[in-house]
């Protein structure tokens, strides 16, 4: 079943057109990897999907409801945000909240949950990402990998229908990447729907079932993951994958 359907998404910064008509389908349970060279618009695309950036035009179908990206209403955006979550490249944890506080903040303020109820859920998701020993630690007391796992727990706490990840491991030291990818792998195996911008080709190969390759603000190739890596159609994609392999990815 199609959960998210994007048609003709366009976005400019001033006179610079960054997204030139993007189409995308995500079904419930999909893990979609978004690949592409730097500057191709991957981050901007993801940010448009959660309205951190406002797209200029396009249609956005979520859960069967169709929206016109050119004229989104405040309550439409709030409604979509309630059902989605975002994991940032540089974690963006609330510096003045503990790990548990980070996870419960949105539940208490936005969802009007009671504190005990929010904390029950908070502990549950922190346990899930392997941080049961770190409830009371502040972000500055955690390693990068731990911070990103808190961020993933914060995303999970709101029980989203899809999680957007923007290069979740790019800001991490190499030895910390594995712990974050393992958490994501587990989520995928449980059927969580995820849209992941990543440069981790092996992760994309193993975990994603669909791949979207972006270049220059457009989708150059979109295919099932097996097909994409076994026999990419576009010469440009083959070249991109070869360069990444040569750089030990």
């Amino acid at each position, binding site marked *: 079943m199609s959960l998210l359907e994007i048609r003709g998404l366009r976005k400019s910064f001033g006179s610079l057109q960054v997204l030139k008509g993007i189409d995308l389908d995500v079904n419930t349970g999909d893990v979609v990897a978004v690949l592409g060279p730097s500057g191709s618009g991957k981050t901007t695309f993801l940010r448009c999907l959660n309205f951190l950036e406002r797209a200029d035009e396009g249609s956005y179908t979520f859960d069967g409801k169709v929206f016109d990206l050119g004229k989104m209403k405040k309550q439409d955006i709030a409604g979509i945000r309630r059902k989605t979550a975002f994991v940032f490249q*540089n974690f*963006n944890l609330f510096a*003045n*909240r503990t790990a548990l506080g980070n996870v419960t903040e949105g539940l208490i*303020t936005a969802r009007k949950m009671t504190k005990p109820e929010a904390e029950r859920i908070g502990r549950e998701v922190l346990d899930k990402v392997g941080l049961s020993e770190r409830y*009371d630690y*502040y972000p500055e007391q955690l390693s990068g990998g731990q911070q990103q796992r808190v961020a993933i727990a914060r995303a999970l706490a709101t029980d989203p229908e899809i999680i957007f990840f923007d290069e979740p491991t790019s800001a991490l030291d190499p030895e910390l990447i594995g712990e974050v990818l393992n958490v994501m792998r587990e989520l995928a195996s449980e059927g969580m729907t995820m849209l992941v911008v990543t440069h981790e080709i092996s992760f994309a190969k193993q975990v994603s079932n669909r791949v979207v390759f972006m270049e220059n603000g457009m989708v150059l190739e979109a295919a099932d993951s097996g097909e994409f890596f076994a026999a990419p159609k576009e010469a440009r994609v083959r070249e991109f994958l070869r360069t990444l392999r040569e750089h030990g990815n």
Partner: protein
Amino acid sequence: MKERWITIFLDSFWKILLPGLKLTLPLTALSFLFALIIAVMVALIQFADVKGLKQLARFYVWVIRGTPVLVQLFVVFYGLPSLGILLEPFPAAVIVFSLNEGAYASETVRAALEAVPKGQIEAGYCVGMSWLQIMRRIVLPQAMRTAFPPLSNSLIGLLKETSLAANITVAEMFMSAQRIVARTYEPLLLYLEVGLIYLFFCTILTKLQSIGERRLKTYGGTK
């Protein structure tokens, strides 16, 4: 000569300290409290880029910072009565110092707001929080930490600046000293004495500042 000095010093000590406790400190504390409220509001208006209000906020900061506080005191206390607005000296001083300090402090708070990483605001939106909730629970608490040392500095500055209220007949510490000078003709002794008492008050504030800073240094203290 020496004995006379000691006698005058001791006699006048309480006569200066008492107005300090009864007027200088309350004037400082009240003005600073109102200044903080003004500063946070003015800073938030600019941070949020509220059209219209933002221009008003910039105008306020521009006028206040561009004119001497002494002039502001005179305008409010001696000038406003000709518009039919008569204020007692103490409230007039509180109003002027609040508005004056508020303008400076708003710049401190604004800079501190800007220093909070924008990503945390976006993360707040993503978990469904409203702008106000994000400000109140995430951004302001962090900004006030950043702003704590410069604001403490302003507080110490304000304490001394309240001596200007003598000019609008608030009988605070400095004016009390002046009155004793008029009686005893010992300006050196008495102005040194009142300076010493200011120094004493400021030392306490400095001490409080460093205690506060140590407490605020890291989230979760030393774990």
